[in-house]
Structures are given as structure tokens and as C-alpha cells.
């Protein structure tokens, strides 16, 4: 059995219990044609915690994130090696339906990308794709998800209005609601606030904090303060390698690795 970098979860007192594993990655490599951008990463992400991936641009953190719902499959020249298990299920096993995997592992992108449909149809899109046709059920899902991202009060009177008329921050929250609507257990966020103003960023961060008890959240961020504010665990990646993975507080106060220390103190990156 390979030795995995698993954070010392027992030290956390606020959560109390030991956590189950949401994502277990072993020896994950990602190749873009002949070049390797992720070099054999072993990682274990605890369920219902917020984990942040930090690191300089091009370190492979977004690429690694996209492995978890197999979005890298869309890039023709991209090949993923190694094993990834999501809640115990090998996502590269032959019988795995991508649609089901993505239902389990939702994703929020860097730039808000609502469909040019109404607010309601945006949130209802996922459930509809998965066969939900009942209007009452859909109404309920839309309301619950919009409430969960604290958007309900702002949009409840114009659910039929275009999603593109919302502000940037609202659009991003809508995208989060849309991702939640299919009922995922894991939510991947690829720099979800990097295109937003500070106030909207604050709201997204509050939202992550509120969602942490319900979902396993993995967030890629450039912003170290953000990682420190919202995450329970932080992984520092550098040049395709996992340099350090630890509790956020530990990683930012007492990094074990020299490179980590250099990065968080702003000496490079």
C-alpha cells in the first residue's frame, strides 16, 4: 500500500469526528501530448471539508482538479494516468458513466458561464438532463438551490428573466446553484472568485463556508488569503508536484517544506 499524504485530521477539534474520504488519488499523472503537467500525485481529500489547491500559475492545480470529474477527457491530446476513486468508486473503470460521475462531482468555473436561458432554466437544466420532469419537484429544487447560494431573495421575482441580466457576482452564485441542483456530493471550484470584485468575492467565500457542512469542496485559488480564509486543508502544488498537503492553519503558519514557506511568504510565485 502506497503511503498517502493524509492530513492529521484528529487535530481538528471543531469537527470532532474522523472524516471519510471523498476523493482518493493515487499516482495521478496528466500528459498533454508529450509533456507532463502533473507528475504522479497521491492525495486524499476528506469528505465535507474545504480543500484548497494553491500554487503558482501553471503548477497543474486546475488540471488536477479537472481530473476528478474527468473534464480533461474533453481535451483531445490530454491523457490521465493513475487511479482516482470518488467515494470508493474508480472513475476510470470501464463501466463508469461520465454523466453519473459529473452528477456526483459538480464543477464551478473561473468565469461565470450561465446559459443564455432564464434563471429558472439555468438551475433546472441539470435535473432536467437527468430526467426530472415534474414541475413541482423542479420548482422545489430551484428554490432550494437558489436559497442555498443566497440568491433567492434577489431573483425570486424574475425567475423567468434572462440569467445574463444578472451581475457578475450573481451569475457566479447562479452557476454554483446550477451545480448544486443535480445533487453532487463533491463540488469542484476552479478559481470561482478570480473574475469578481472584492464584495462579490466576499459573498462567494461566505457561501463556501456555509456549504462546507453539506459538500466536499475543492477550490483552486491564486489568492492565498482566500485559501486561508475558507479552507480546512490546503495543498500546495509546484511544477506538477504536490509539495505539501496539510491543515490550512498548519500549512500557513508552520509549513514543513522550504518551497511552501517561500511561496506563502511571497518570495516567488
Amino acid at each position, binding site marked *: 500500500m502506497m503511503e498517502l499524504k493524509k492530513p492529521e485530521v484528529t487535530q481538528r477539534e471543531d469537527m470532532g469526528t474522523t472524516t471519510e474520504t471523498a476523493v482518493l488519488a493515487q499516482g495521478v499523472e496528466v500528459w498533454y501530448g508529450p509533456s507532463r503537467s502533473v507528475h504522479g500525485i497521491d492525495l486524499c481529500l476528506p469528505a465535507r471539508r474545504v480543500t484548497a489547491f494553491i500554487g503558482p500559475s501553471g503548477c497543474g492545480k486546475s488540471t488536477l482538479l479537472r481530473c476528478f470529474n474527468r473534464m480533461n477527457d474533453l481535451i483531445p491530446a490530454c491523457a490521465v494516468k493513475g487511479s482516482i476513486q470518488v467515494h470508493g468508486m474508480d472513475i476510470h473503470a470501464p463501466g463508469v458513466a461520465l454523466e453519473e460521475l459529473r*452528477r456526483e462531482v*459538480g464543477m464551478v468555473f473561473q468565469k*461565470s458561464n450561465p*446559459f*443564455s436561458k432564464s434563471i429558472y432554466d439555468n438551475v433546472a437544466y*441539470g435535473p432536467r438532463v437527468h430526467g426530472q420532469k415534474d414541475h413541482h419537484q423542479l420548482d422545489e429544487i430551484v428554490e432550494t438551490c437558489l436559497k442555498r447560494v443566497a440568491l433567492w431573495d434577489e431573483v425570486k421575482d424574475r425567475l423567468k428573466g434572462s440569467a*445574463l441580466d444578472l451581475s457578475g457576482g450573481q451569475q457566479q452564485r447562479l452557476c454554483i446553484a446550477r*451545480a448544486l441542483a443535480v445533487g453532487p456530493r463533491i463540488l469542484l471550484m476552479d478559481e470561482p472568485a478570480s473574475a469578481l470584485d472584492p464584495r462579490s468575492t466576499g459573498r462567494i467565500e461566505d457561501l463556501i463556508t456555509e456549504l462546507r457542512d453539506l459538500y466536499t469542496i475543492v477550490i483552486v485559488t491564486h489568492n492565498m488569503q482566500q485559501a486561508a480564509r475558507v479552507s480546512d486543508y490546503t495543498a500546495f502544488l509546484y511544477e506538477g508536484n504536490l509539495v505539501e498537503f496539510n491543515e490550512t492553519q498548519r500549512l500557513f503558519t508552520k509549513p514543513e517544506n522550504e518551497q511552501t514557506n517561500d511561496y506563502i511568504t511571497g518570495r516567488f510565485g
Partner: protein
Amino acid sequence: MKAASSARDSVPVMVTSLGLVLVLLMLGMVIWLILSRGLAAFWPQRLDRLEMKDGSVLLGEVWERMATPEGGRLRLRVGNRELTGQDILLLDESELRASTRPQDAVLVERNENGVFVGWLDGLSGPGVALSGDGPALRERLDASLDAMEDLDGALRDLQEDARRLALKRGRWEEKLEQGTQGDERAQLEGRVAESGTRLAALESQLDSLRAAADLWHLRMRTADGGTAELPLLQVVRWVPANELGPLGRTGVYLARLWDFLGEEPRESNTAGGVWPAIFGTVLMVLLMSLAAAPLGVMTAVYLHDYARQGVVVRIIRLAVNNLAGVPSIVFGIFGLGFFIYFAGGSLDGTLFANRLPEPTFGTGGILWASLTLALLTLPVVVVATLEGLAAVSPATRMAALALGATRWQMIRQVVLPNAMPGILTGLILAVSRAAGEVAPLMITGVVKLAPSLALDGDFPFLHLERKFMHLGFHIYDLGFQSPNVEAAKPMLFATALLLIVIVLALNLTAILMRNHLRKVYKQAAF
């Protein structure tokens, strides 16, 4: 960009602006020509009485005055084809002694033999015998023309009834020939016999109506002093050309315009209307769109979203682009060979074998013409759709896929709606091209005069095998195939104008639809 161009720049500015000026000038000339001639085609002209030096007297519309070294030349439309044999004359002004504009001259439009110009001289019919022009005659003439119109309507209805009955009877007879037996045979024979008597009754009814109509005549006095009896049934309207004020002339103009749009052509297309050609053009464009749009969109979606991008796809794209430049007549010949001879011939052999050797689909028809044009416009649709698909951001596609949508769900629910403006742009271009195309149609089903529309009340209502009329071909026919080119000229310009208006209207509809969709599916602003 404003007045800042330096002296060194003035030559290129002049040269390039000259290009623009030339282009605008030529476009302006074309538009002016078609607009002025097309719009003036139905404007009632004045009638002039010309006394020639050789003693003859002519009455007609002066259509044109041409300057020549020897003086002027006049193009005079004298009508009265059955008397003079030539309804348009060229006259040297030097031959002219005097010209007057008689107030009471009248132009009569007829169903046959073109117009008649002269003076009203009498009206005869059962119980009516008026002679000499006057208010009494004119009043009576109007009333009689109304009656004739009713009678004409009744005649047409009867003819239509007879035609339908004959059609049904033909089907029953066909069944009998196929050897139906037993009760059904007896029933069919009974029907055939009964319809025979009914047809005979209809015929005799028609004959008596025609005989009643033939009793009515309008007597006209011509410029040279003779008289002529015009069967009143042939008279469409009479125009007191020199008495009409602006309002009256506008009325005549509108009535003629209405006839032009709604009536069938007569006198080998030089008079009457172009309704069948309008109908044929629009129906053909619609059928073409129905074929080209789905096929083009399907092709583009496969090329853009499913096919593995590589050399093969690049070659196919290049080929599609180049296909747009193939001369349209080549598509026409392909349509003739593939659609008509091969597909149509096979269809006839399997489905309509009992009608052979008379071809049903094995000859030109609106279906094959539409499909040929669909083929011709397919590259345009494919290229525009590809561009539309490329314009849908990858982020939007990712969003759908990340929610667990399948590729097809993503394409159908997210990508295609967003690409719709692009697809419609392609369709607009395709429609513009198809509506104006003539060459491929000439060998795939367009005719000078189609006996019936492709859409009517007879089962199965849409007759895709029928030949059809088309405005573009109509223009060609009027301009170059007409037995009476001079007389066809006003119709020619009016038809050209109408074709432009129809293409414009089709385009405008598509553009409005596209703009509406653009509003609905605007791309994310962030």
C-alpha cells in the same frame, strides 16, 4: 480618419473613392431603372390621336420618344391587334402632321388580343341596344361588366366542378381497369355512369352560360373610322384615359397592380398577372429551406462537434467552401441526372408504374428543382452554421457537460439555440441565392406557363411532381422568349421589381427572426 489625411494620401483617397463612386453609380442606375420602369408599368397613359402626312390617323399611347438625327421617333402603342396585326408602331416625327388628345378616347383592356383603343360606340345584348357614346352607355356598360364578372365567376366555378368530377371519374375508371370484382365493381360502374350524366349536365350548363355571354358585345369606333364588335366577356376594364384625374389614374393603377399580383398570366405572359410565378417562387424557396436547413445543420454539427478534428475534416471544410463556387448550371445538370432521371425514374418504376410511359416524378418538378437548389445552397448553410457553432463559447459547452449532460443534450439544448442566429444568417444567404437562381431551374422543372399550382384543393394537396412557374424564369421568358417583346416590356420590369421585393421580404423576415433570437440568446457579457 477625418480630414487628417496628408497631401501624400490624397491620391489613394481619390482612387479608392472613385471605386466607391463607380459602384454606387452602377447600383443606383440598376435600382433607378427597375424602380422607375417597374413602378410605372401600370400607370395609365394618355391617348394621343396622330394625323400622319400620308392621311392615316392613329390613336394610341406614346410610350417613348427617341431622338434621332432626322428628328424624333415615337414608339406608339396602338393596340387593336386583331385589326392591325401589330400593336406597337415606330413612327418618324417628320411623318407627323398633327397631334391631338381627344377627351373621350377610351382604352379597353381585354383577356385576348391585348388592349383596344378607340371610342365607345355602342352596347348590344339581350334587350339592350345602345349606340353612341354618352353617360347612359357608360353607366350601362359598367353594369353589364359587373354582370359579366359574375357570369365569368359562375363559368369558372362550373369548370372547376367539371374538372374535379372528371378527375374522380378517371380514378374510378382506373380502378375498374385494374380488375376490381364483385360488389365493388358494380358500385364503381354505377358511380362512373352517374358521374357521366352529371358531367354532361355540367357541360350543357356551361354551354348555355357561354351562349348567354356571347350575346353581349361592345362596339368600338377606331381612329380610322371603322368599328369593331368586342365580345363583352373578354373585356376586363375600360379606361377613359384622357378624362381621368390623378385620383382616377391611381385607382386604375391600383386595380392593375392587384391584377398583376393576383391573376394568372395571359397572352403568352405579356398581360395579366404573375400570381403562379410568385407562388412557385415562394413555395420553391420554402421547400428548399426545408431541405437545406436540416441537412446543412446536421453536417455542420457533425463536422464541428463529433468528427475528430484533423486533416480529413480540414479537407472536407475546404471542399464545402469550394462547392459554393461551382456554377449553378452544373448543379442543375446534376439535379437533372440524379434527381430526375435516377431518383425520379426509380420512383416512377416502383410507385407509379401504372402511369408509365407518362412520367410522374421522372420529369422536372418543383420537388426536384427545390432539392437541386438545396444542394446548391447547402455549402452556404454549412459554412454559416459552422461559424455559428464556433461562436458558442467553450465555457458554455463545459458548463453543460459538467452538469452531466451528454454531448447530444449539450448540442441540442445549449449549443444549437445559441448558434441559431448564425444558422439563420446562412439561411438568409441561401434564400437570397435560391430565389434569384434561374439556370438550374430551367432544366429541373420551371415552365413558361404551369397549368396548375403545386398546392391546391385536390388530394394530396401538395403536388411535388408538378412543374411550376418562377419569377426569375418569368423575367427571362418575358425579355427573350416572348412573341411580343415590346408589349412585354412593362411586365418585364414590374416582374423584376417584384422579384427583388420578394427576396427583400424573405430576407427581412429572416433578419428580424435572427435579431430577435440574438436578443434571446445573447452571449454572456462576462
